């Protein structure tokens, strides 16, 4: 009885030792991959940061209005943020490759999915950033055009355009990520529809007087001005 117990225990111990002996090289491999991954990710981060600084990406980001958003959220500059993002994506990629070397069942599938997701993530970020850039540009263009044409409420026109472009680019970004596609589509439709309805109501009911004043100023005023001489700038 005792002898059998000792044999079983010895066999179990051998198996544990054998398993550990089999696992240790894989673990070492994982650690080496993670370590090399860290170095590569760090190099990538440094290269990207240098390129972005040379390309004055922070300036572009400032023009897009992204810098202001980041400042409000107490986040670092967009160059730093993007460099860190690339570092973490690269390193997590290496960590997952390293973990897959351990041979854990089902891990390969997750690693594959992660790498499959990366292009979509970058596409979504790209869409979002250029959406911000476009919203900043077009809202400012609308503001200037409205001020120079002496239209009422230029800032309202400008911020409406900004909001529409941001909502539109965020919805495209989420769709690209495959996150809550239907919810985003419905939300976008609701936001857009309610905005249009709100504007129609505001102008038709709430802004009736404003509309009348505007039309009067536009046409009655112009009739008055016919008698005035126009200044020639050149």
């Amino acid at each position, binding site marked *: 009885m005792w002898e059998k117990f000792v044999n079983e225990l010895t066999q179990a111990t051998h198996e544990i030792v054998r398993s550990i002996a089999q696992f240790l090289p894989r673990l070492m491999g994982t650690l080496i991959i993670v370590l090399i991954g860290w170095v590569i990710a760090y190099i990538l981060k440094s290269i990207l940061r240098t390129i972005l600084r040379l390309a004055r990406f922070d300036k572009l980001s400032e023009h897009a209005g992204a810098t202001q958003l980041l400042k409000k959220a107490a986040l670092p500059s967009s160059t730093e943020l993007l460099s860190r993002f690339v570092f973490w994506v690269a390193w997590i990629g290496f960590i997952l490759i390293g973990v897959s070397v351990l041979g854990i069942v089902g891990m390969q599938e997750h690693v594959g999915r992660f790498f499959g997701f990366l292009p979509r993530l970058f596409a979504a970020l790209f869409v979002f950033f250029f959406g911000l850039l476009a919203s900043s540009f077009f809202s400012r*263009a609308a503001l200037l055009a409205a*001020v120079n044409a002496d239209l009422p409420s230029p800032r309202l026109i400008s911020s409406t355009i900004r909001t529409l472009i941001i909502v539109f680019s965020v919805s495209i970004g989420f769709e690209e990520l495959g996150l809550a596609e239907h919810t985003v589509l419905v939300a976008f439709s609701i936001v857009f529809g309610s905005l249009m309805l709100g504007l129609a109501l505001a102008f038709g009911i709430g802004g009736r007087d404003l509309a009348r004043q505007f039309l009067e100023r536009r046409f009655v005023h112009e009739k008055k001005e016919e008698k005035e*001489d126009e*200044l020639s700038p050149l």
Partner: protein
Amino acid sequence: MAEESILTDDFLRELINVGEVDILIGVPTYNHAGTVGQVVQAIRAGLLQYFPRQRAVIINADGGSKDATQELVRAASISDLQHGPNLHALRTLHSISAQYPGGPASGVALHTILAAAELLRATTCAVISPDSTNIEPEWLESLLRPVCRDSFDLVTPLYRRHKFDGLLVRNLVYPMNRALYSRRVREPYPAEFAFSGRLGSYFLGQEFWSQEVGRAGAEIYLTISAITGDFRLAQSFLGTKSRVEHAPADLVPAMRQTVGVLFWSLEQNFPFWGALSDSQAIPAIGAEHEVSLEPIRVNRKRLHQMFVHGVAELEPVLKSILTAPTLTELQRAAAVAEEDFRYSNELWVRTVYEFAASYHKTVISRDHIIQALVPLYRGKTHTFLLENHDASADEVESNVEALCLAFERFKPYLLEQWDGRK
């Protein structure tokens, strides 16, 4: 060759049929049926009267008019002259009307005229605005004679104008151009001007034609190029400049093709203007300036409202362009009642120079920077109208001179802003 791309085959054939000429007159048009006939007639009369022995050609560069402008030019080229029935040609006076590609653009029209001038080896050239309904045959002599007789390379016009006409030129383009490029050219964005074949070829060889500046605003860049290229400049008095009606919305394009090009040129010519200090007069033929004073009705209150509205609404845009002290001062000025409001010369000069520096640094889209200057210019216009309401011609002139001196005095401020801040 530059002309190969701009001259169409048909136009080229017509030019080759003309052969070499001594004088070339360019008339850029776009829907000018109402005025172009009498302008072409006056040009013909001027050429026949003052340059009967020279080989001459009138080139009409049209931007695709839909009101029969080109037909009217052709008709005016062969009709009897109203200006002088006794005028007879000693040589054939050619006249060609051609449509340039790409739609109406004053720069492309000028490019076409320059290319034609180079091809025909014209030694003396002039451009006449089709809007100049007051043109007299004598204008041709006043413009062309200094080039062909006195060897000047660029002759810009001097006009008799109403004291409240050309306010953008008086309040910004002339003083700034004078302060930075050190030449007192009264009309740096000329509607009429004459130039030598030498300057024409030099200007044609510049590399900006494919850019936006090459489409609109090439006229002011021609003046600047003549200064930076050390060509001989003169100004010639022509007569009364007819008033051109401009809708208020025209101010933005006018700003783009004058101030926009002036700002743009600063970047190209920094080593030149950065080293200059005092301005120099250039030879003037005839009266130096004449101002008419008849009363006109202008809505000053509206100008003030648009200024105040602009300063308030554009605050986020102005913040990225102006320094904090200048913006604060502007906001303080905008808070004052209309009757007490004054946009001082010093504040105006600082504003313009900070805009120029921000344009150089591209703090936001360059076109947006130019557009943002429009409401502020309206504020300055208000002050100019107020200060010169009852002013005599001499007082108007002395006020313009004071502004010019302020632009010259503050030039170091622009240099300081140029590479500093942001």
